[in-house]
């Protein structure tokens, strides 16, 4: 059985394989679909919705939607880009993101995405929720102010570290990342060498004492916009 076929993204025909998601196929073809919760080493869960594309007229999250022969996908259209921008804005206003004081600045995927979208300020009013900061772990800081509930840490701990340090608790606007300990992160078996420590796209989980080893200005997204690595595959 021939398991490769063609799909179309924004009018461009690309190769796809059975079992790939739309995002996999697009990545391989050098087409960047913006994303936050998705990570190449983790099972996709489609929670941030930034990768929303239109497939045969219907919205789908590219990170979870499997490709099918002949699929026609809209990715880079004004309407889709506007929806994505709105979602990025929502993430900024639901937390407390002070980029200029954040250790993750320059390495932060949310910040980088905002720059890529030309966002200088969110269009929605800040909600200024009260969030906790958990500094109980000797080597790791957990700052809920910057959490976007992408659950990368939940998955990394389970899928890559063989642990179960994190899980979502609560619901709705009060949903947050909980830890598998009596009270705080220091009560868990989390280790600084865990993949879950470095997989956070924002500044919610950060290693202590190394925040400024790489100076601002020389960080990942100071050099090239987010997504450039994918687009470079087929320049």
């Amino acid at each position: 059985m021939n398991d490769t076929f063609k799909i179309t993204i924004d009018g461009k025909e690309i190769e796809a394989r059975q079992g790939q998601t739309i995002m996999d196929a697009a990545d391989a073809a050098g087409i960047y679909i913006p994303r936050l919760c998705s990570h190449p080493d983790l099972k996709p869960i489609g929670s941030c919705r930034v990768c929303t594309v239109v497939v045969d007229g219907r919205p789908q999250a590219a990170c979870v939607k499997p490709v099918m022969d002949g699929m026609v996908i809209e990715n880079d259209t004004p309407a889709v880009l506007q929806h994505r921008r709105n979602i990025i804005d929502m993430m900024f206003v639901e937390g407390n993101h002070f980029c200029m004081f954040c250790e993750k600045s320059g390495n932060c995927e949310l910040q980088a995405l905002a720059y890529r979208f030309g966002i200088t300020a969110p269009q929605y009013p800040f909600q200024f929720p009260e969030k906790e900061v958990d500094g109980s772990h000797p080597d790791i800081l957990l700052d809920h102010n910057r959490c976007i509930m992408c659950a990368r840490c939940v998955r990394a701990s389970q899928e890559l570290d063989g642990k179960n340090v994190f899980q979502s608790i609560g619901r709705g606007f009060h949903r947050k990342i909980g830890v598998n300990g009596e009270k705080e992160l220091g009560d868990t078996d989390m280790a600084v060498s865990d993949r879950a420590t470095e997989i956070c796209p924002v500044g919610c989980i950060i290693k202590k004492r190394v925040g400024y080893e790489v100076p601002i200005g020389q960080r990942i997204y100071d050099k090239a916009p987010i997504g450039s690595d994918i687009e470079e595959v087929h320049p």
Partner: protein
Amino acid sequence: MSEMVSTIKKICKRYGNDRARLMDIVNEVQDALGHVPREAFGLIAREANTHRVEVESVVSFYAFLSDKKQGAVVIRLCDDIIDRFKGSEAVGDALVAALGIGFDETTADGKITLEKTPCIGMSDQAPGMLVNDTVITNLTPAKIPDLVRQLMANPDPQALVAEPGDGNNADSLICAMVNNNIREAGPVILADYRKNAGLRKALTQTPEEVIEDVKTSQLRGRGGAGFLTGFKWELTRKARGTEKFVLCNADEGEPGTFKDRVLLTERADLVLEGMTIAAYAIGAETGIIYLRGEYAYLRGFLEHTINQRREAHLLGNTILGHEGFNFDVRIQMGAGAYVCGEETSLISSCEGTRGDPTDRTPFPVVKGYMVSPTAVNNVESYCCAARIMDKGPGWFASIGTARSAGTKLLSVCGDCERPGIYEIPFGTKLRELLARAGAEDVAAVCVGGPSGQMVGPAQFDLGISYEELSTGGSVMVFSNQRDILEVADAFMEFFVDESCGYCVPCRVGNVLLKNRLERVRKGVGEQKDLDYLQRLGESVKFTSRCGLGQTSPNPILSTLKNFRPVYNALVKENKTGFHKSFNIMKAVEQASAIAGRRSEIFHA
């Protein structure tokens, strides 16, 4: 060993120390201890072979579970808009006065906790409340002092039921003061029927022939989504898997809907018959009825009905002597989460986790409960299927319209003379339904609940059907005395409370929508706020992950469309150039307090 520890160990053991039964375990711990104490999370996790944070994840998700000690009696006042319009706020005030506590508080003696809860499925006899599992209907503020006095003297809430309602509500296993309020019975569901004739007929056919009949009948899912039931069964039958499951969605959470309450009360046998037919058709041996926590008062009766069917060989092994056909049903209790009516959330909940929805590729028909092919159908759909097998697919398809076959059970409530259940053929005009329900001076009707649409008189000549006015059963009537935007606001409040928070647009977007609607309602909104609502609402609809977020902006979007003048009247043109929503006095208030003097420029 402390009592708490032994109680928890016993409960976990009863469920085979199985993490997939975590919902049942924490539900029972809650019943036994009055809460699920945080100190017990670790113990439950160890006993149920899971992790502490997974237990916290479940307990923190469901509204009926609490990690804080509650009274032996928990009063949950129904807080939907229908109840509010029928006076529930005054009832709430009376409760507060009689108990001497506020909402979300427990009396000093630790005996009674007071809470609010969304629609409990009693909108036809509002205002209502739950006292533990006991339903109290037709409340007035005057009745409250006596009710509270009785509860303080005798904490058994069943003692409050002076006179049970009609039909099976008076059955000793239900004994609820609930009335069925069946106003109009139709030919399919509420007509007299021959018990198990459908099942017997099905067993004379092959499973494929049964599926063909259901397909021919054009039966579509009665929960509202309208997927072809026969097609769903066929996909489940054909999907690869050693085990298959039949799930009944009895998580009737859409505000204003109460038809499943009546079906489970008066047609429990028919529901189970339909499930058994589905099991035969797709090749399933296990069925689950997911019963919303609000309907816990029906649980004993349903379990009894299941037992009776086992004794009559209508469930269990070799059903009706049919060699190789084994099927049994269990009840899974919910615990107060609207999103669990979404089929993938319902499955998550049945598997003992928080009720987050899952991605719908693969669909449940391929990978559902326990990663096995699963058919999830509405209570009413199963009733229809059983009747189709008895009376034939042609008979069923001849009722209704070309694209909406059969009849629909509607729960009509709100401003009308005769609230209750109407079984109408699809295609019946809304205007006709309103006349039959005795609704006059109607300004708006919410068809399909908050996730449906608000329509005005211009749409009253549309028919109730999948192609025109689609509804899972909810029809809420609002007279011209009501504030349409108060209704929309209450619906948004509902969605904010019920969003699971998994995806960004639903978690955040609904909060932003509600806040901006409030601004408009206060009269400090502008025309551009309406554009904001429209655009944001469209984004939430377009990008949300499950049906909740994909429909949650409907109260705003459908009122913007059908009741634009109401909005326009609130956002009169502002010539000053200042933002009306900006209050300079409020903005300098904090600074004035710190400075210890009022602003020289801005002061009242």
